[in-house]
């Protein structure tokens, strides 16, 4: 089953952009996948300012999505970060 498909997962906020973020959190920052939900806060995931610098770098380099670490750090939850990523991806297209 793919998470970026059906209505149900979309309603839970688990879009393709969400999956992209989740993959970065897991692969680069080594967050446990089961910890990651749209509602999880940066404190829940133990993400510090350096982690947001890394996230910003991966988004820019591998996804062409240029969002500063300060902007990302201002977000509270995973869902907030996804919303910011979607907004910027929309601006770009």
């Amino acid at each position, binding site marked *: 089953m793919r998470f970026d498909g059906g209505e149900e997962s979309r309603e839970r906020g688990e879009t393709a952009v969400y999956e992209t973020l989740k993959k970065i959190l897991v692969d680069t920052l*080594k*967050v446990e996948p089961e910890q990651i939900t749209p509602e999880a806060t940066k404190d829940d995931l133990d993400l510090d300012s*350096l982690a947001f610098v*890394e996230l910003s770098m991966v988004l820019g*380099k591998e996804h062409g999505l240029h969002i500063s670490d300060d902007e990302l750090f201002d977000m509270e939850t995973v869902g907030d970060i996804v919303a910011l990523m979607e907004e910027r991806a929309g601006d770009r297209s």
Partner: protein
Amino acid sequence: MTGLDIAVTGLGLVTPGGVGVEAGWAAVRAGRSTAAHDPVLAGHEVTISCRVPDFDADALLGARRAVRLDRFTRLALVAAREAVAGEDLAGWDAARVGVVIGTSAGGVETFERQHGVLLADGPTGVSPLVLPMHLPNMVAGQLAIEFGFRGPNLVVSTACASGATAIGVACDLLAARRCDVVLAGGVDALLTPVTMAGFARMGALSRRDDPATASRPFDVDRDGFVAGEGAAVLVLRRAEDARADRRRVRARVVGYGATADAHHITNPDPEGRGVIAATKAALADAGASAPDVDHVNAHGTSTQLNDLVEGRVLAELLPSGPLVTSTKGVTGHMLGAAGAAEAVFTVLAVEQGLVPPTANLATLDPRLDLDVATSAVPREIDLALSNSFGFGGQNAVLAIAKA
């Protein structure tokens, strides 16, 4: 007796013999070299090293913890966890627990890798973690973060003597009553391209083709050291406290001598004056004299210069002929970890009454009048010395006595 009397109550090791004290001591006792051709060094002038085998940092530390640590800190953290494994950490007064770790260069693997990123991707490609991973002091800081120890926290650097210097400094902190417990040790993970190219260019490394026979301390045909990596951590406390707490004391550190050659950046003083002074200082600390020394774990790097100068000093200072060994024949030269790992081997030798062999010693250098163990020798040991000397002419000698 001047009164240095520090109990060793915990041991942790990560060496080319494997992860853990048991694996390292078994390899050393067996007297077989751990050297092998190293794929990281393909294309180098010298391609052999002594790596820690099967070190799975994600499995040992967790991927989240490991991803932010350079290899040198990973090795030290695993050794430290073993050293405190039997302790009731919740019962310790964290403010009175110190950490002193020796390393010659810190997280060089991270630094070299990130320099590659800089050249390939420019400055904005460089990881924000390069400094927290590379800075030499971070290893002591990470141990404090891991265990919550809030006392004096420092890293010392005396090149290949770093691990022994750290133990000496830790003993001084305990004797001065600045701490009640100190985690002391050494670490280096410098089997990296730039470091190894530098050692090779200096002419410090063995050029033998056969890894198994390359590290041969005190042998007439020695031609340089084999670089290794590793970490060793000891739990130290004042012997009086250990006795009052009825702790198991593995052995005691009863003397420490620290001197500088003030001679040359890499060559030892040919007359060994700094080594002689350090040895005398360690013996004076212990209230002991030359005939009291039963065993010496020599620096014994397998270079022409070190082994000649050190061997002559030992013969001159200790004419009663203690049984000498160099465990570097097995482990290679673990650099900043060597002094601490060899202190652990010396503690085990004293505790078990067993002098481990010097691997690959086929023919003793005829210029040396030494009794060197070539097989594991049962021997009652009341007092032993562990020698460590660093580039820069920094010397550290530890005197280790039976519990």
